[in-house]
């Protein structure tokens, strides 16, 4: 039986030579959590099942830095490495793979050009293409949407881009299905309603998407404590859970979380 995966996510600002892991991008107060490959190695040693680097650099001179960061990480981290942020073509993806990444995560670029999913998947295999969906609840304009009856009322989920600042009108469940058909290997599903709140995953969103696709869903957004991970694995078909801040400041170690999950009947790799 496949283990449920626990995945730390490192938001990387690559505006400096070594790059920096940041937390709090949605707030004015940005905190620095460390150097990307050092943190990645620490998480690897602590039992991470995969590592995700998300490039949130605003400047355009970041590509060389990302190549270095990936190369350094691949020398000491021996679990799958996913890189996302700013990958908009097959040639961008190729650079990331050649540096040593195993998967790329695409969001805005896939919504603009869905064929990119097919291209990456055909060249590198389905497992190498993660489609990231940032979904926001909408309680109005329900006509023609795939709706879900939630505790707060009936809603649909809209795909957003640019870190939740822009909206596309695209139905997240519809888009997840299309990504699956086009050859995505995982759906990285982030709730924009929960991201940064530490109130727990959006269970209703995760459940709806995970039951609509045949590929693994990585739940993301809102995790504040190990109980939230247990809840998402026990109430939905999510195959993985992604978290950032609870790991960055040593609130919980990855091994603490995995031991807690195992004790509570969730199948994890220890």
């Amino acid at each position, binding site marked *: 039986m496949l*283990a449920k*995966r626990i995945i730390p996510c490192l938001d990387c600002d690559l505006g400096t030579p070594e790059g920096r892991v940041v937390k709090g991008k949605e707030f004015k107060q940005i905190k620095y959590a460390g150097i990307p490959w050092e943190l990645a190695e620490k998480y690897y040693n602590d039992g991470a099942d995969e590592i995700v680097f998300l490039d949130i650099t605003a400047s355009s001179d970041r590509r060389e830095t990302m190549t270095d960061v990936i190369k350094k990480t691949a020398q000491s981290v021996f679990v*799958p490495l996913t890189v996302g942020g700013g990958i908009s073509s097959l040639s961008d993806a190729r650079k990331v793979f050649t540096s*040593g990444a*195993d998967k790329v995560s695409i969001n805005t670029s896939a919504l603009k050009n869905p064929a990119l999913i097919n291209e990456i998947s055909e060249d590198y*295999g389905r*497992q190498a293409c993660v489609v990231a969906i940032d979904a926001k609840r909408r309680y109005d304009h329900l006509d023609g949407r795939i709706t879900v009856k939630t505790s707060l009322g009936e809603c649909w989920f809209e795909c957003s881009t640019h870190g939740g600042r822009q909206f596309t009108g695209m139905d997240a469940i519809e888009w997840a299905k299309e990504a699956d058909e086009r050859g995505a290997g*995982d759906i990285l599903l982030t709730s924009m309603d929960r991201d940064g709140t530490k109130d727990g995953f959006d269970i209703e969103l995760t459940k709806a998407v995970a039951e609509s696709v045949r590929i693994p869903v990585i739940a993301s957004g809102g995790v504040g404590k190990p109980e939230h991970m247990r809840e998402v694995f026990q109430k939905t078909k999510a195959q993985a859970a992604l978290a950032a801040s609870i790991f960055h400041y040593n609130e919980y170690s990855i091994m603490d979380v995995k031991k807690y999950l195992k004790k509570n009947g969730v199948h994890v790799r220890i």
Partner: protein
Amino acid sequence: MIAIIDYGMGNLYSIKNAFEKTGADVRIVTDANAFKDADAIVIPGVGAFDSAMKKIAPLKQDILDVVKSGTPFMGICLGMQVLFDKSAEGKAPGLGMLSGNVVKLPKTVLSPQIGWNELKIKKHISLLDGISDGDFFYFVHSYYCAPKDKPLVAASVEYGTDVTAVVAQDNICGLQFHPEKSGPKGLAILTNFAGSVKC
């Protein structure tokens, strides 16, 4: 020196990095002259069976000769599948070093299998020293090897059926999972392999 044969199927740097982490002297090679005198040979590979066989064709005889001479040999993922006679994924014949076929994962499970699965050890071999039943390894595949001689199977995983994970016969071994992406346990297997090689 351990030679990793680059025949154009997938990125080999992760495997090279992982072997280097174990302290082994490892090189990526592309032609027969470069691996003829190697102390051990590794064939990785990600992709489709037929294109792998097409790309490996120019090296086929040299690989068979080196293996016949007793050089330790490891096939990883698709590099394990090409060791067999044929595959349901394609029409091209395999290298035929091990007898048996490569078959599709059952329809009852999602394919490809992507993720960490628990090893069931069938037979103790030195390659699996330090590995226990229930240790997890990272898999990415849609087809798996069905050896003619069942005792060839040293370990398997449960994924809709009993899926061959490790095979070993004389100087040849094959791993369906990716040891270079399987954390400390994967590195332990590569260390065992490198340790069994006189270099």
